[in-house]
Structure formats: structure tokens, C-alpha cells
């Protein structure tokens, strides 16, 4: 029997492609940013299920963005797919190194250590003239396997690549979470002693999860950079990490679809709040999070789970 989640993901992808021809450009851009950032949240979701909160995903998000920016500037690489892969690999490598230490820690120590690593990258970016310092770097228009769109076609092309990346990432993460190693998230959160006495290294699994989350965040960073056309140290700042945690809480961790739903809602609330209440938009976001925590402690996805449980 076909997997319902994979079928739903394919249906959402088809719908996302179809509406791209009728959506206004601001909506295309907003959705691109939301889906790109949802990739980061997808990685956070895996860690969250394991009982780990990372306040440092901006490290990999920024690393991905800068890998794409520097590859364009220094190597003249403009192919969006190659940049995506490069960003994901660069971020995964950093995550692998950082993960050697991170995987030893749990709870608040994991959260604070991940934050510390991201702030190191932020400090390096801010102080390095070669990396654009606080001004950042402009990203050249991307090409797509030799196709070089311009104007609105460029925006739509980045959008289509982003939703395709979202489909692939969500499908891969879903399959991972259904595997034996993916199903170890709750056991590691619950009882590492039993996991060890079943013959599996909880630390190795956490390390793997850090790398997967890093790669996803790196790809998200590249896609965001391509959509915005600019990168700056803000990408690696702790408030960016906080935003990803915010969306994880808002979305819930019950399904790989949840991060996309949460991220889309977050970007919409933020955009409209900034447009209509530029002085108080953070207040409105805070209120939205408060409502979520009070009424949907399992995140927005819990609404669907409750409905399914009642059915």
C-alpha cells in the first residue's frame, strides 16, 4: 500500500507547481522563503523528536548561504542545483565536525553549545572583509542546468527549485523517520541506557541527526540566498536560530509536512504584521506563539492528529 504521507507530499508539490503560474510575484517570493526555511525546521524536527533543541541552526543556514555566495564570487559557479548540493555538503561537513562534540551533550547544554558555535561563525563573518563583513555579499542570478532566466522567470525558477527541494527533503526525512534508526528518536529521548543495552550508540545516532539537520539547513540557506539575492551575517545570528525554533513549536513535530505549514504561516504572519504594524510586528508574532503554546501545545499539526483520532 502506498505511503499516505508521500502521496500527500506529491499532491502538495503538484499543487505548488500549478499555482506558481497564477500566484502574484510577492506570494511566489514569500512561499519560496517559507519552503526554504522549512528545510531548516525539518532538521530541527528530527532533533526535537530526540529531545534536543538546537539554538544554532543558523550556523548551517549561514554556512550554506555563504558557500553558495563564495562559490559564485570565487569560482563563478551559478548553477542553482550545484550550489544547493555544495551548500548542503558544506553545512553537513561543518555539522559533522561540530557534531563530534554536540552529540555528547543533552538538554540545555546541547542547546547552548549549538548556539555558541553559531555565534562563532557570526563573529567570523562580521569581522572578515573577504566575506563581505556586515554588508554581506550579493548573489549572482542563478542558472538552472544551462537555462538562465531573468526577471519574473528567475523568481519562479527559484521557487520551483525550492518546492522540488522541499519535496525531496521531506520525502527523504519521512523515509528516514520510518526506518529503525529514525524510529530511535523517541527511545533516545526516553531512555539512552536501554538504547545502549540494545546494542546501538545513542551518541552516533544523535551525531547522524545533527549532520542531517545541518545538511537540510545548508540547502535552506542556499535557496534563501538565491531567492533574496544577498547574504549577510544576519543569516548566522542567534535570532535567526530562534526563528527556526519558533516555527518548530508553531508547526509541531508530528509529520514532515508540519514544518512547511508552520513556516508558511510564520512568513505570512510576519510579512503582514510588518506591513500593517511595522512597530509592533514582534508583539504580534509573540502573541501567535503564546496562543499556539496555550491551545495547541503539540503545534498546529496536532489539529490534524486530533481530527484523525476522532475519525
Amino acid at each position, binding site marked *: 500500500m502506498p505511503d499516505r504521507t508521500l502521496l500527500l507530499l506529491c499532491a502538495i508539490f503538484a499543487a505548488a507547481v500549478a499555482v506558481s503560474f497564477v500566484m502574484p510575484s510577492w506570494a511566489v517570493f514569500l512561499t519560496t522563503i517559507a519552503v526554504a526555511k522549512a528545510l531548516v525546521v525539518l532538521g530541527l524536527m528530527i532533533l526535537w523528536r530526540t529531545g534536543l533543541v538546537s539554538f544554532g541552526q543558523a550556523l548551517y543556514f549561514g554556512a550554506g548561504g555563504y558557500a553558495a555566495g563564495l562559490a559564485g564570487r570565487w569560482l563563478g559557479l551559478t548553477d542553482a542545483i550545484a550550489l544547493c548540493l555544495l551548500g548542503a555538503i558544506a553545512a553537513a561537513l561543518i555539522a559533522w565536525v561540530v557534531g563530534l562534540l554536540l552529540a555528547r551533550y543533552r538538554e540545555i547544554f546541547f542547546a547552548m553549545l549549538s548556539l555558541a558555535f553559531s555565534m562563532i561563525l557570526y563573529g567570523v563573518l562580521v569581522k572578515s572583509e573577504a566575506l563581505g563583513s556586515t554588508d554581506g555579499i550579493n548573489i549572482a542570478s542563478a542558472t538552472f542546468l544551462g537555462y538562465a532566466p531573468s526577471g519574473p522567470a528567475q523568481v519562479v525558477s527559484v521557487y520551483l527549485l525550492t518546492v522540488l527541494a522541499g519535496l525531496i527533503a521531506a520525502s527523504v526525512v519521512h*523515509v528516514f523517520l*520510518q*526506518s*529503525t*534508526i*529514525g*524510529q*530511535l528518536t*523517541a*527511545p533516545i*529521548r*526516553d*531512555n539512552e*541506557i*536501554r538504547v*545502549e*543495552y*540494545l*546494542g*546501538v*550508540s545513542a551518541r552516533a545516532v544523535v551525531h547522524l541527526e545533527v549532520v542531517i539537520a545541518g545538511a537540510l539547513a545548508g540547502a535552506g540557506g542556499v535557496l534563501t540566498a538565491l531567492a533574496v539575492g544577498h547574504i549577510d551575517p544576519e543569516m548566522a545570528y542567534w535570532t535567526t536560530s530562534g526563528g527556526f525554533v519558533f516555527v518548530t513549536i508553531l508547526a509541531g513535530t508530528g509529520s514532515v509536512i508540519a514544518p512547511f505549514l508552520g513556516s508558511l504561516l510564520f512568513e505570512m504572519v510576519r510579512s503582514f504584521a510588518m506591513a500593517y504594524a511595522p512597530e509592533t510586528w514582534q508583539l504580534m508574532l509573540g502573541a501567535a506563539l503564546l496562543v499556539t503554546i496555550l491551545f495547541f501545545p503539540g503545534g498546529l499539526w496536532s489539529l490534524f492528529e486530533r481530527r484523525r483520532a476522532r475519525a
Partner: protein
Amino acid sequence: MAPILEVHELGKTFGSITAARDITVAVPAGQTLGIIGANGAGKTTFVNLITGYLKPSTGRILFERRDITDLSPREITRLGVCRSFQVPQVFPTISVLDNMAIALGIARRGAGALWRPLRSRRLVEDAGAILERYRIADYRDALASTLPQGVRKLLDIAMAVAAEPRIVLLDEPTSGISVEEKYEIMEVVVGALRASGLTILFVEHDMEIVERYADRVLAFYDGTVIADGPPDEVLHDEKVKQFVVGETLHRTARQGAAAAHA
């Protein structure tokens, strides 16, 4: 019969406290070994040392002639030495069936075994069959956190032996369980484990249970073995009566009085 487990001059100290000293034991394959002793006598320390939870200060541990003294719990488990715990170690926020399926999924051999889907029909059926064998199938959809203590103990043991080990160490499998349930649980556990041809080491305070199920008994006192032999011999040994059985009787009497008072 060749020993499956050999312990040579094992010792463990925590600062100035000696938790285990000069323990030398050889366990033949297929034997059911009861471990008795008063609280603090070193029984659980002995189990923890064999299964890698603690590292010995002195001595060596051989499993099937391979030195496992310095191996991690994970490595020891993979070699075929599994254990259950005095406080059952299960995954409380998932169902009993998922607990069992995860234990079985990890136990699968072959390249990429951990990457295969956990909830395959075959694995779910196998997990269900094990729950039947341990007579806890009625609880298969319940969260492990909601289980009665006896069921949780059985689940802990069933998960421990999912990897089809060659030796299993049970740390007080009947502690915290009513007298009526104790025998029921031991019948289920020992029956299932013996049917698999496992070597069993179990720590137990109830001498009747030890007498009924053990082929051989090790009596611990003050961190070392003071008697080793068949149950009827060890349980009637003067030192054992003085330091172990007497203590246990006093404890049982105290518990009985407390229960009556309550």
C-alpha cells in the same frame, strides 16, 4: 561443559569503598545461576561489571574465551550478553508493540539493517509473537508508561533477549511484584529463556524462587562470593544462613509487618 562466562579475581572500588573483591566464577553454557545476597552485598555490582555498566578495578571477564573487560555495554550486548534491570528500562512514551519492534529492529543482522523500515509486516508479527510468548500481548497498544510493574518487567526482559543473546543477566526480575505474581513471572521468563537454550544469571532475594529455578547458586557477602554450589547445599550453608538467608528473612519479616501495619 566449557564455560561461557569466566570471571577472574574481579574487584571494584569506589574510593575507599570496596564494592566487589576477588570474585572468580566460571559459568557453563546452559546453566541457570541464582545470585543471592543481602542489600549492598555486591550482586548488582557483579551484574554491572559483567555487562560493562561499571569497569572493574581489578580482574578479567571472559565471554566465550574473549576478553570483554574493557568493552562498552553496547559492544558486550552485540557479542551476545544481554541484561534486564532492577528498575525496568523501557521506552515509556511509545507503545509496548513499538518497544518490542524497536528491540527486534535493532537486533536484525546484515548490512543496512538499521535503515530498513521498522514497521514491516514481518517485524510487527515477530514482535507480536514475542509479546504472546511473554504473555503481555494484551498490552500491545498501551503506552509503556502505563504498564503495571510486572508487565513492565516482562517487557524489559523480552526486549533484552530480542537480540537472541547466549547469556542473559536478570537483575531482580521479581522485585516490586506481589508474591502471587512472582512465580507466574518466573515461570514465563525462565520457561521462555530455557526454551531458547540461554544461560541465565538472575539476582533474587526470594530464596524459594532461587531454590526452585536455579541450577546453581552464588551467595554474595561484603562484595565477594562466600558460597557457590547447588541450591540445597548453598542455602543450607552456615555462613549463608548467617549473612544472607537470615538477613533476607529479617527483611521479609519487616516488609510483612509494614504491609500488615499499612
